[in-house]
Structure formats: C-alpha cells, structure tokens
C-alpha cells in the first residue's frame, strides 16, 4: 500500500550463495523483515514488539517502513549494491547480516552519501577504521572472545574443568583470520597455551589433515571459526576420525547457522558457541518473535537472522526519535542513545548508545549457548542461562 512519506527505512543486505557471512538464507531473513514491517506499519494491540500500537512511525507522521533487499556475495557486489540501493532505492539506512569484508566495501558507499549502517560484522578493523556512519549493536570479536575465555576461567573455578591448552582452527578468509588473531592474543592474556593454530583453505576439497593435526595436538579446547559447509565438513571428519575434544567452541559463523543442527541433528550436541541471542531467553518479545517466525518458516529463529532485522528496527527508532530521515540526524540519535522500551526488546539490552568514535554499542552483551539434543540452550552468563553446561563432552562412541 502506498507509502505516506517515502521512508524506505532500511535495506537488509541479505547473504546469497554460501559465500562469506553467516550461512543464513534469503528466505529466512525476508520472512523476518516481513514480520517487522507488518508490526510497525499496522496496529497490533496484542503485540509486545516496538511501534506495534500505532501505524507507522509516530515521530515521522506515521511514515511506513519498508525493507528492500540487495545481494552481497562478494565485496565488489556489495559496493555496487550499496550504491544502487542508496541512489536509486533511496534508502535511509543499511543493516543486515554481513561479513566484515562486505561491510568494509559497503561503508565506502555509506560514508560517501552519509547513510548510517548498523551491521554485526565482528572484526575489530570495522570499529578501528574511524567510520562516521558505522554502528554495531552487539559486541565485536574482542568482547565475544574475551567472554569465551572468561567462561573458561569460570569453568576452571566452579567446575574444576582444568582447561589449559587451546587449539585454534580458522578459515583463511577475512572472517577467520581476524578471529584467530584476537583468539591468540586473548589466550595469551588469560594464560592459556595455544598448542596449534591452523588456518585452513576456504575452498578446501578435504579437511582431513586439519582434523588429524588437531587430534594429534589433543588440546583441552578446540576453537573454530568457519562458515556453513566447512563447519559441517569438520564435524563429519571429527566423527570419522573418532575425535571430539573435551570442549568444542565455534565462534558463531557456520556453528550458529540453522544448517548446522538441520544437517547434523544429534551429532551437533555438546558444541558450544558464542551468540548474540537465543530463542530460550525468557521475555515476551523473544517468545512472540520466535513464535511468529516459526509460524511463518517452520524453523526456530536464530540470533544471526533476528539481529539482521532488529538492526533495521533500531535505525527506524533512531529516525523516529530524530524526527527526520537525514543520515546525520539518525547518527546523532544513535550516538545519544536510541530509546527502545526494554519490554519490547528481545535482546534485553540496557540501551542502544553507539559511541561517536567507533560506532560500538556500549550495552552490547554476549551469551554462550550449547547444542543440547540438537537445540541451542543458553548456558552463560548465569542470569540468562536456561540449562546447565554439559562438560566434558562425551566421545562419539559414548553418545
């Protein structure tokens, strides 16, 4: 239906093909975007999601929001798409689940036209680059990985886990290399010994030699950063070699994707991963959005998909708060702190204040989840934990 004020709120740049970025699929992200559009643009008295009660954005005279989609299978395509969507579709903001590489090229266009961008590429180089219009709601690699090692300390103290050695396996792409670098530094800071640091080739025809090296190193914890197909290939090779470390930690990516549990079913059990959100967080907004999504798609909603759309809502709230669609006004609102009623926030963050200098949201928190009976359950921090961590992981034969 016709838009009152052509507020093309935000563009969800959806990953296509299994290139870099989470293994999310276009269909899932589009379904989520449709749910948010419906809630904001139409009156929903029973909903506990933001702007449900009114039609459109009150601060902008009831303007409707619309998600428009672009492709980002390579950095070059991401740049052309960003330029196309800004100049021809006239979007006022960009969000979506990006790899750090495609975020960098998208920022080239965004900085040029002064269009605010909120995405979750975790590499530190994004927040260190000094972008003016960049925002990241949830933590970057540093906080996620710091959180991981803090959790190892927590386990050593409370569960006498006696974890000392770590083996890093990461993909030789922008995504994997950044994580491996931060993991190595943080391990040193926390006093854990990195016994093996493997960077494997993204288009590998086999990962057998990587698994054999990890098996030989036999570290207490194996930390991995891989995308869709590789994470599955690794899990299968672990099973073939009959090796499963006491703790297998995946840094989001393929381990967070819906493909993971779908293909592996119970073989995914015991795998831990840092995460931004999980469907078992107990607040009304989470329960509602999870239900609406599974009604639409029949699949449980995962953090990567939700944050892709949720960043769009934050941009809308910022525009609504600033009362204008101009990029600088929205960025200013983001810097002051976007007021989102905590009751309507599935992430349950204290606030959305994006620092001027690097765009990082001060209140971003991370959680740690574990696959139990092929479903993700939050295990850390205790506040939002819904289940007890299963440690040490049982070997393949004992399952």
């Amino acid at each position, binding site marked *: 239906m016709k838009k009152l004020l052509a507020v093309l709120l935000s563009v969800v740049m959806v990953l296509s*093909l299994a290139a870099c970025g989470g293994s999310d699929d276009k269909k899932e992200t589009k379904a989520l975007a449709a749910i948010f559009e419906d809630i904001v643009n139409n009156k929903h008295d029973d909903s506990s999601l933001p702007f449900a009660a009114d039609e459109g954005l009150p601060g902008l005279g009831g303007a409707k929001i619309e998600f428009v989609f672009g492709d980002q299978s390579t950095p070059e395509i991401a740049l052309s798409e960003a330029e196309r969507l800004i100049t021809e579709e006239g979007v006022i903001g960009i969000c979506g689940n990006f790899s750090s590489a495609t975020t960098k090229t998208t920022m080239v266009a965004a900085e040029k036209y002064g269009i605010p961008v909120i995405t979750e590429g975790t590499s530190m180089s994004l927040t260190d680059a000094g972008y003016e219009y960049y925002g990241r709601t949830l933590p970057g690699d540093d906080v996620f990985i710091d959180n991981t090692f803090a959790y190892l300390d927590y386990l050593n103290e409370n569960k006498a886990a006696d974890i000392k050695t770590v083996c890093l396996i990461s993909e030789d792409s922008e995504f994997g290399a950044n994580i491996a670098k931060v993991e190595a530094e943080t391990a040193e800071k926390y006093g854990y010994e990195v016994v093996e640091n493997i960077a*494997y*080739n993204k288009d590998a*025809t*086999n990962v057998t*030699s*990587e698994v*054999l090296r990890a098996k030989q190193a036999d570290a207490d914890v194996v930390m991995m950063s891989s995308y869709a197909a590789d994470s599955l290939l690794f899990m299968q090779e672990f099973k073939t070699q009959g090796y499963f470390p006491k703790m297998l930690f995946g840094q989001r990516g393929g381990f967070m994707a819906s493909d993971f549990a779908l*293909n592996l079913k119970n073989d995914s059990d015991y795998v831990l991963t840092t995460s931004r959100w999980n469907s078992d967080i107990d607040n009304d907004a989470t329960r509602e959005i999870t239900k609406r999504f599974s009604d639409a798609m029949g699949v449980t909603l995962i953090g990567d998909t939700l944050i892709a759309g949720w960043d769009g809502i934050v941009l809308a709230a910022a525009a609504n708060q600033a009362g204008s669609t101009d990029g600088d006004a929205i960025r200013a609102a983001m810097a002051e702190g976007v007021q989102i009623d905590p009751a309507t926030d599935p992430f349950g963050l204290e606030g959305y204040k994006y620092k001027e200098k690097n765009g990082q949201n001060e209140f971003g928190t991370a959680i740690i989840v574990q696959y139990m009976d092929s479903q993700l359950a939050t295990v850390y921090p205790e506040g939002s934990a819904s289940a007890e961590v299963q440690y040490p992981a049982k070997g393949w034969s004992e399952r």
Partner: protein
Amino acid sequence: MFLQVLYEGLTMGTIYALLAMGIALVWGVMNILSFSQGEFMMVAMYITFFINLATGWDPLAAMPIVIVTMFLFGILIYRTIIARALKGPVLSQRLVTFALGMVLTNGMILLAGGQTKSVPDKLISGTISLGSVAISKEKMVLVVTSIVVTGLLFWFMNRTKMGKAIRATSQDKEAAGLVGINTQTAYMIAFGISAAIAGAGGCAMTYSYYFMPNIGTNFMIFGFIAVCLGGFGSIGGAFIGGMIMGIIDLFTGTYLSVSYKYMAVSVIFLLIVTFKPKGLFGR
C-alpha cells in the same frame, strides 16, 4: 598416524583420479579442456539428492540411475554444445566448457538454492578401526566406486569395439575416419562416458560430503593437475596422477603446513610440466 594419513591420502586420491580420468578422456580424444568436469560431479550429487528426497533410496541404490542419467546428459551436452564448438577455434573450445560450468553452477543455485545439502541417513556409515587406523566406511564407498569405475573404464577402452574406436580416434582422427570409424559417435560416446564417470564420483561423494552448487569449482584445478601429472590424455596416467595428488595433499597438509599444502601441489605440478612436458606416462 602415518598409516592414517596414507589411507586418507588414497581416499582423496580416488576422487581426484575419477575427476582426472574424465578430463583425460575428453582431452585425449577431442583435445578439449573440460572445465565443467567438477560441475558434472556437482550435478550428479544433486540428482542423487533429489532421488533420495523423492524415493528415499540410498545413494548406492541410486548410483546406476545417476550414471545413466549423466551419460545421457553428457551426450546431450555433446550434441548441443561441444560438437559445434569443435568446429570453432581452439580457444573457444576451452571457454565453452568454462561457460558451461558457470551455467550449471548458477543454474543449480536458481533450482536448488545456495544452502548446504546432504543426503540424510545412509545405508553404510560408521568407522572400523584397524589398529591405529580409523577406516571410515563412507570413504570406503568412494574408494570402491573409484576402483570399480576405473576397472570398467579400462575394460571398456581395451576390450570393447567402441572403446578401441575411441582410442584410435584419440591417436589420429583422420586415420581413424579412414578405417571406417565414425569419429562423431566416438566423440559423443567418449564425452558421455566422461560425464558418467563424474556421475559415479559425484554419487559416491554424497556419502562423505556436504554439498552446495559451487563445490565443483574447488576440485577443478586438482583434476587438471592430476591429468598433467599423469600425462597428456593417458587415462591410466590420470588415475595414478590423481593418486599422487591425494597423497601429496594429505602429507604436506598434515606434516608441513595446512595453508601451504595447495601451493606444494601447484609447485610440484609446475616442476613436472617444465622439465617433463609430456607428464610421467603421456605420449
């Protein structure tokens, strides 16, 4: 550990060998570089997946159908594209297969979407451990398939009339034509067989691989290098070249460094091509 790496090397070697034999057959007979061989394997994987989805058959049960379908698919591709390209300049022959690869990959993305797929519960699974060596049954399927296919191929090429006709055509097209061999059918059957080999490989690979449309391209460069190692157009050489490739891949990966293992493969290839251009066994 050494035995385990050796076993894994041979397993990988069989995949490269299957790919390389398909390429060597087409290269030997028609002097065409088939860039689309990896994509044929990918298409076979998806056919197996869809058969399994529709009828629940296990990949092994579906293999004969997949091989026949790929054979017919190969003949269709030959008649529509390759026959015509053979009349054109040499360079366009090479690009035809690259463009075909692009069409197959992206066509499959349109058809089946980009998400990772796999064949769920398979007939044979699990691992037998012989001392320190963990033999994965899924990979055994691949090894057995490859050996069976190689045996069949050799029997066909050396024992059957059509096989000899194809070998004659690959040595000298005009001479073969003179002695009454219909070189066009020889080419067509050869291309069909090469697609069928890729089919068998793809079908067996569904046992131990998750796949998506662009998995074919990762294998392409290894197939070519294996063929060159084995020598121009010699199918036996391609099999051995593939095996060598698998072993180099595993040993450099495990003992040297994972990130440089593909470089070792390329460097070894360059040394062989520079100092022994006809490869180890080629004519």
